[in-house]
């Protein structure tokens, strides 16, 4: 928000009170973030289909927009806007209508604390990392609302699975970030990024072996957290039809979609900021920080897509097994290990 408030201050000079500056900056930032989210969904739906096509030895969309179907998402959006908004007769109407927005808002709120570039952060919170984990769990509520309100047994299955998975995987997800917090001594996202200044060897994932494992744990847990293959149990195509969003159509369905891709990018952004040096380049001085950040995050997203289109899906008990019996203990070991490492190398204050 710094960037925005400075910008407004420069434009209006003293014409705007500090409160006014804050409000104007905040609103602009919210708008920018919403646009980023929408852009994510647009770019990533296209990318997903292209990646899937590439992996599956076919082309993917090729027609709309002349060059490799670049306008396909636009066509999809127009189509989805024109769809009838169907609410099942026996559905709980209010919850049914509200659910997509709860999921969407939960995702949007988390964006506030992502540092895209020096100063380009909507809310430079001291508890940034904590805040992100807190608000992004709101998505679980939305999933449960959607599944329950649909009054469809398959949706309910998807919702229950989704919530169980979301709640479980938040634990390794957060635990995996704790070693980083220990090293930087801060939950502030900016501080975490700044601590990684000075080339790839200073990035947290290469800090010590325990952090490298933590990074892998974070990456796996994040895939599960956003319900994507091989952990896409809440919407298992072949078992639950489409899971919690089976009954949704039109724009409401689009919101689920939007939230899914926004979340995908969000967890990649967090990984970038926490483990992969944020806007810090591989070597040399800071250069085009926003672009560096987005490039790293997009590469992570592509990696997630690659996994999704390659691996089969786990079963629900195996999923829980991986979480509680493998990842959580391993994450705890990493926390302990990272602490010992700090003591041994004299980094501990």
């Amino acid at each position, binding site marked *: 928000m710094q960037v925005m408030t400075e910008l407004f201050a420069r434009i209006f000079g003293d014409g705007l009170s500090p409160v006014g500056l804050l409000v104007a900056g905040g609103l602009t930032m919210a708008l920018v973030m919403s646009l980023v989210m929408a852009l994510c969904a647009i770019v990533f739906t296209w990318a997903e289909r292209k990646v899937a096509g590439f992996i*599956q*030895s076919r082309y993917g969309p090729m027609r709309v927009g002349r060059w490799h179907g670049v306008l396909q998402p636009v066509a999809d959006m127009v189509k989805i806007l024109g769809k009838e908004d169907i609410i099942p007769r026996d559905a709980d109407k209010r919850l049914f209508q509200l659910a997509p927005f709860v999921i969407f808002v939960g995702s949007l709120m988390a964006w506030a604390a992502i540092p895209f570039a020096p100063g380009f952060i909507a809310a430079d919170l001291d508890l940034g990392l904590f805040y992100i984990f807190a608000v992004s769990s709101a998505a679980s509520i939305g999933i449960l609302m959607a599944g329950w309100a649909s009054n469809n047994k*398959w949706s309910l299955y998807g919702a229950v699975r989704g919530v169980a998975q979301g709640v479980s995987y938040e634990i390794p997800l957060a635990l995996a970030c704790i070693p980083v917090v220990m090293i930087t001594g801060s939950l502030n996202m900016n501080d975490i990024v700044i601590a990684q200044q000075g080339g790839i060897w200073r990035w947290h994932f290469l800090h010590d072996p325990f952090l490298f494992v933590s990074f892998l744990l974070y990456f796996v847990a994040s895939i599960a957290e956003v319900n994507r*293959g091989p952990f896409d149990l809440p919407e298992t195509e*072949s078992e639950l*039809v489409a899971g919690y969003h089976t009954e949704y159509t039109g724009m409401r369905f689009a919101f689920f979609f939007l939230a899914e891709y926004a979340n995908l990018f969000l967890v990649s952004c967090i990984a970038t900021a926490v483990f992969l040096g944020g806007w810090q380049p591989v070597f040399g001085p800071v250069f085009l920080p926003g672009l560096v950040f987005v490039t790293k995050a997009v590469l992570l997203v592509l990696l997630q897509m690659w996994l999704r289109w390659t*691996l089969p*899906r786990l*079963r629900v*008990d195996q999923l829980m097994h991986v979480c509680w019996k493998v990842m959580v203990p391993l994450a705890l070991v990493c926390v302990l290990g990272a602490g010992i490492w700090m003591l041994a190398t004299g980094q501990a204050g």
Partner: protein
Amino acid sequence: MSETATGRGWAEQDVRRELHSELLEINMGPQHPATHGVLRLLVRTDGEIVHGVTAHIGYLHRCAEKIAEGCDWRQWMVYTDRFDYLAPINMNFGYAVAVERMLGVQVPERAEHIRVICAELQRIASHLIAIGTFGLDMGAWTPLLYCFREREEILNILERLTGGRMLYNYFDIGGLRFDAYEGFERDVLDFVNIMEQKIPEYDTLLSYNKIFIERTADVGVIDVATCRAYGCTGPVLRGAGVPFDCRKDDPYSIYDRFEFDIPYGEGEQGTVGDCWDRYMVRMREMYESCRIIRQAVDALPGGPVKAEDLKKLVKVPQGSLYTRTESSKGEIGYHIFADGGSKPFRTKVRSPSFSNLHVIEKVGPGMMLSDLVATVGSLDIVLGEIDR
């Protein structure tokens, strides 16, 4: 089976009664992505654990057996195409062999060889779909597309040969409807050469994938006794460790001349007769089919493709006969009753998927919902032949 066993034990505890909870009845199908057609499974579940499965079939029923009573012997061949629409040639083959046995017709050598080539190509095509859709049931999308890539080649050959891509109606009583086109052997050999190289690709992509093994090994175990009792045949029976194949054990056509092995499940990744074994049997059968095709192409003689002493309107002498042949899904049997006329008096089609599906009611209870999907996928059913 450890998970499923504990699952059943858990459910049978008094916990449920204390919680006053009920079983959830849920319809899997008739419109459901995992049922491979219009099949409806009424599943009673307790959370993720299945307590009972009832299969409701008949959505595709056309009473082809009644239609048979109004067709003459040759005409009904068209309807056999429609049973297993993923392997129509194998269905044709069974009916042709059945009627020819009753007639005592000698099919020309060339026709027999082309029949075997077509049937084995079709078997590969059908297994490719079985493997691909099974992967899809496990959430692996990509193998399906690779399988379709190779299947496309088979369809191209069969299209050039017969004019159809899905329903061929190529076999005739006493031979084939017409001879193969120029260059058929070359096309087939080209395909076999490619196919044999592609099978290891599927292995790396799916068969030995850790998650895939976790999902399929020890899941949906169907042992030999159950197979015998429920009449399961084909890859389901062979997956249970019995090297039984009608092509070898009840030979028909010219299969006794070819050298090939019968793959069977050995429980490499888990228990004998689990989903992985059934899957792997299909995978290995594609190799064997390639071997048979090579030999058949090498031995392909010239000459006519129709039995010459056969009239247009066939009349089958009185009597009955049950004939079984090996389709890609299992034993396809035609129990034919003839009264000496130009129309079949009664033809009963014993379709492999019909019996293979029945077993789900037996093995389903105690599984997890995802395992049920996996097991139905591994049975490789086609509703066209179940409902007929």
